[in-house]
């Protein structure tokens, strides 16, 4: 990362260019004072941290609370009894199992289907390429709720309602954009010349893909897989319609828990539901460079 400094501007010329000053007074005088800038920065960070983290902190506290009444800022009583309840609850166990069974399967199938498509969008020319690429966005643009009755009817006919593969299929839909757009940008970034040089050395198209293109696009693919896993794991609406009451995943269970049970239960469940996300966050820090995500959405 380059060190970026905004040097102190020359007062009069900034006035001219900014074009907005009453005689002699610069509205942004304080910007030049480094202490002020630093204080502003600190304020920003504190405000942001509070905004982002405090709600999560609240949940964390709730998970260990037995009683927390207004206006206390921390729970009156702490207890682990709800943990006991959650862990011995059969529904929770089975929901966790379903979640951890469907999400990886969805990610793998999504990768198997979408990566070749991503490569094709990147490297091949065929009629309708742009239109088809953009059309994947439709998977996210149509409110899922509006579709699910029609999907449910279809699944009934195909005997997929309440089945594992039905849930996998519905979660798959939400991963399409991620698994095509981001890897496609990754493939784009591999210079043609590198592939040509490999062909020049005698490698056939498959060998070129395997030895050259794929390794170089791998960071983008990994980012896409992370995000697809999270998307599948967190998918709630579709799984609600297709899976329940047989197949209930953690997010779906969350809906009922939140409504029917006291706060600690929901809070504990939130922690459990967040666990894979946190693990991935720690693993992904190296890869989640903004470049791969952004490149995927910049279009072609």
């Amino acid at each position, binding site marked *: 990362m380059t060190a970026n400094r905004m040097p102190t501007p020359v007062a009069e010329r*900034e006035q001219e260019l900014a074009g907005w000053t009453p005689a002699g007074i610069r509205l942004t005088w304080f910007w030049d004072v480094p202490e002020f800038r630093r204080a502003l920065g600190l304020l920003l960070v504190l405000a942001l941290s509070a905004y982002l983290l405090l709600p999560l902190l609240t949940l964390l506290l709730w998970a260990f609370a037995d009683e927390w009444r207004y206006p206390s800022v921390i729970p009156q009583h702490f207890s682990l009894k709800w943990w006991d309840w959650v862990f011995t609850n059969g529904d929770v166990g089975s929901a966790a199992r379903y979640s951890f069974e469907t999400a990886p399967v969805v990610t793998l199938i999504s990768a198997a289907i979408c990566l070749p498509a991503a490569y094709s969008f990147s490297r091949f020319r065929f009629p309708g390429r742009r239109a088809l690429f953009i059309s994947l966005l439709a998977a996210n643009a149509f409110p899922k709720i509006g579709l699910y009755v029609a999907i449910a009817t279809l699944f009934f006919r195909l005997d997929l309602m309440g089945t594992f593969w039905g849930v996998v299929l519905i979660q798959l839909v939400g991963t399409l954009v991620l698994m095509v757009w981001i890897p496609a940008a990754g493939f784009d970034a591999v210079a043609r010349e590198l592939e040509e040089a490999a062909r020049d050395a005698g490698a056939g198209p498959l060998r070129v893909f395997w030895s050259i293109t794929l390794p170089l696009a791998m960071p983008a693919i990994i980012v896409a897989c992370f995000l697809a896993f999270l998307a599948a794991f*967190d998918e709630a609406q579709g799984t609600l319609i297709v899976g329940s009451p047989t197949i209930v995943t953690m997010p779906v269970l969350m809906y009922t828990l939140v409504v029917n049970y006291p706060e600690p239960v929901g809070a504990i469940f939130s922690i459990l539901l967040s666990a894979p996300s946190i693990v991935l966050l720690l693993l992904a820090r190296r890869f989640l460079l903004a470049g791969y995500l952004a490149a995927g959405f910049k279009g072609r």
Partner: protein
Amino acid sequence: MARVREAALGLALVAPPIAILLLLIILPAIQALTFSLGLVPSENVTFSSGQHLVRSDIPTLEVYRQLLASPFVIDDLRLTLSVTVLSVIFVAIVGYILALYVRFGNGWLPRIVRSLYLIPMFVPVVIASYAAVTFYVDRGFLASLFWHLGLGYTSPAYKPAGIVITQVWYNIPFAVLMLGSGLDGIEQELIDSAHDVGAGFFSVLWRIILPLNLVPLLIVLTFTFIGVIGSFTIPFLIGPNAPQMIGVAIQAYFSNYNQPQPAVAMAVIVFAIAALAGVLYVWATSRSNRHAVTL
């Protein structure tokens, strides 16, 4: 000949995800559309057993007319649009402030921010909504805090403001990643040369950085718009009961009132609006790719 072969192979490889798209999105969407136009499919039990059905042999806009004549639905639409627009605006502003700070700030503070803003990305939407509710609700954590500080507190929970706050929270990572990546793409030399001729921070921001970073901004605006307008979970858990966001209303019409036809009509309306945003995205990206300056 080779070109035909390339085209055939290309299409074959993209067929699987497109097929899924067709089967699970396009076809159901078309079905929903025709149903909303009054063509009731008899084989679809859920559709054909709904209340207040408008049946017709030819496409008719009667369902839409009835829908838009209902003051409740109009209120829902108005709420949805205002919440969406507000969310988009705030996401853009907050996202931009963060992206600028991370890019141009000095020292260790911006580095902290760089890790911080990613956090909502890893929080499932259900949890995000739930955390927001418990945090902002009347007599919740924030309320307690304000009480201790001697300040009055009106809870945004179960109000439109609550939806906006939570949507912004949830969409910050994507916005900052996109905008930040766009800022990274602006050569430092472009900024330095502006300073060289005497421009100050805000001039550079307004005249150089913002114009050059327009495409990522448009991407953030359209994707956030599309995400918020049809959203369900966040407004369901933290939004008001009346008026509702359209996503929640659709669910209610399906499940509670057993009126599938108005439900799909509302979904079509939302999709039409979202599609407009999508068109904007396509236009913006194709323009940018045409004007890209390669060195």
